[in-house]
């Protein structure tokens, strides 16, 4: 598995394949668990309409998710998405490869006790407005566009260690944000110009993802670098 990847770009909406190359599902969303130290750890791939529908936007998505849940109200936990544990992921390439066969794999997460850790979905975080004092140099209407996940040596496995922020909408970079050699030059140049204000903010004490108020606050001491070198 690669050491570092951008979750929205490399993981979200990709096809999941089991160990026999059978198609399992799409990565409809990514489950992030809040660790004891407050860091965000990717713990599962979420699949199914309960994961997909909320991503259709705050208004339309909420209506669709509510409708889906009310249609399925006789199913216990019918509004909970299926989870594929992150430990089962073998490789993240042009598809997500698992180490196990797909039969019987998809089922909702059963929380064993009330003290279960707080879990959030990547889809809920993406698009959050980002506020920062002017000296940090972020564009005024910056939003959270992507999160960068890096492998760590401790028990967490991997962790969100940087945020990609900028004006615009998540996904609008079309994959042109990470590599310099991607052509066709005219198109790539246009997308790059549109996203000249995109920045990478390293996660640290100066960066707070406030899930209750739905915003990301970046303090003056945060480490910020341009996304497009």
């Amino acid at each position, binding site marked *: 598995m690669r050491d570092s990847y951008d979750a929205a770009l490399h993981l979200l*909406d990709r096809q999941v394949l089991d160990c026999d190359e059978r198609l399992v*599902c*799409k990565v*409809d969303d990514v489950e992030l668990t809040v660790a004891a130290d407050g860091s965000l750890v990717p713990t599962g791939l979420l699949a199914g309409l309960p994961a997909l529908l909320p991503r259709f936007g705050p208004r*339309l998505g909420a209506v669709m998710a509510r409708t889906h849940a009310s249609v399925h109200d006789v199913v216990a936990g019918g509004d909970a998405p299926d989870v594929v544990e992150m430990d089962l992921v073998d490789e993240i390439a042009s598809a997500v490869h698992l180490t196990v066969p797909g039969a019987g794999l998809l089922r909702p997460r059963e929380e064993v006790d009330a003290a279960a850790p707080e879990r959030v979905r990547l889809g809920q975080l993406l698009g959050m407005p980002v506020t920062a004092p002017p000296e940090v140099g972020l564009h005024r209407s910056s939003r959270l566009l992507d999160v960068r996940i890096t492998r760590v040596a401790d028990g967490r496995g991997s962790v969100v260690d940087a945020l990609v922020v900028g004006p615009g909408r998540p996904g609008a970079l079309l*994959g042109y944000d990470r590599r310099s050699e991607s*052509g*066709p030059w005219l*198109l790539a140049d246009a997308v790059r110009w549109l996203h000249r204000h995109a920045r990478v903010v390293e996660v640290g004490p100066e960066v707070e993802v406030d899930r209750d108020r739905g915003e990301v606050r970046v303090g003056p001491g945060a480490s910020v670098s341009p996304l497009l070198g």
Partner: protein
Amino acid sequence: MKRYFAVLLGVLTAIGGFVDIGDLVTNAQVGARFGLSLAWVVVVGVIGICVFAEMSGRIAAVSGRATFDLVRERLGPRMGFLNLVGSMLVTLLTFIAEIGGIALALQLVSSVNHVLLVPFVAALVWIVLWRAKFSAIENVLGLLGLTLIGFAVALWQLGPDWGELAAGLSPAEKPGAESWAAYAYFAVALFGAAMTPYEVFFFSSGGVEERWTPKDLGVMRANVLIGFPLGGLLSISIAACATVVLMPEGIAVETLGQVGLPVAVALGKVGLAVVVLGFFAATFGAACETGLSTGYSLAQYFGFQWGKYVRTREAAGFHVILLVVTVLAAGVLLTGVDPIMVTEMSVIFSAVALPLTYFPILVVANDPDYLGEHRNGRFANLLGMVYLVIIVVAALAAVPLIIATSMGQG
């Protein structure tokens, strides 16, 4: 030897597979009304489908991902869904037109009204989609479709003044009675007929079905770069036949029988029988391709198992979709709607829907994450950008032209 055979078979099926009901009807209509003054559009369209199919075939061979996987990955669930709905509607329209085309071809043989034949045709299409092997569908129907070469033979037999015919290739030779708006409308329709989106969904998903690997890139390119242009020549010979026989008589093409009329004039009953077999094979092949394409698109968007390379029960959802769309298409045709009119709508809306899938494919074809060393080179990108502009212009022009000319009447 086996490899040459594979290339030959692929090229031959690509020729037969290129022509479908949209190409048959639109080329004959254009030939009868505008002569060969629109033949250049077929050339533009054929180069376009080569560029598009080569890129998506390459992505499928290297990464194993087909068109709608990429559409959703690049555009996200919301835009991807709009895209899916638009593309599905156009593919469904084409599917209806192809099934109607099969019924019309059988009507030419049996004189039984095509509406009565529709339930049987639809049932036959579904059984083939359900039971037949993927390679059998592609090879048998593709090879039978080659009987459409009858149009080229008929043109030669008609013995037109070749110099005059060649002089008619210039856009300036537009008949004076036709308006430029109608000319532009049919230019877009002909472009849509040559670059129907389902061809690419089918081509890239077919690559996954046939388990292409980077080793197959050469065979894939040969199929595209030889097969499609020869299919385009077949299209032009259909238009030329109509130009020679129908245009002087002022006959407008409104039925499938009129498409075959020049062949009957040139080669008699036997010739007509051969091309009617071609009509049947080409429309049947395209009906299978469009039917499968609806299943491919939906399954690839939602991520469940699709394809004929696994056992039917492993891709149960996919096969349910095939059944539902076939019933739906038969239901629409049973209302008595004219399949030729459905065809005219399907080709023009194909042009409208084309940018939806072309753009994400062009972006991914440049992504080293998917393609590594096989990503687009300078030449592929130059052509890719030129065609992005052409495709967007055609798509934007289509709806105003539909309104301005009442679908090509004016």
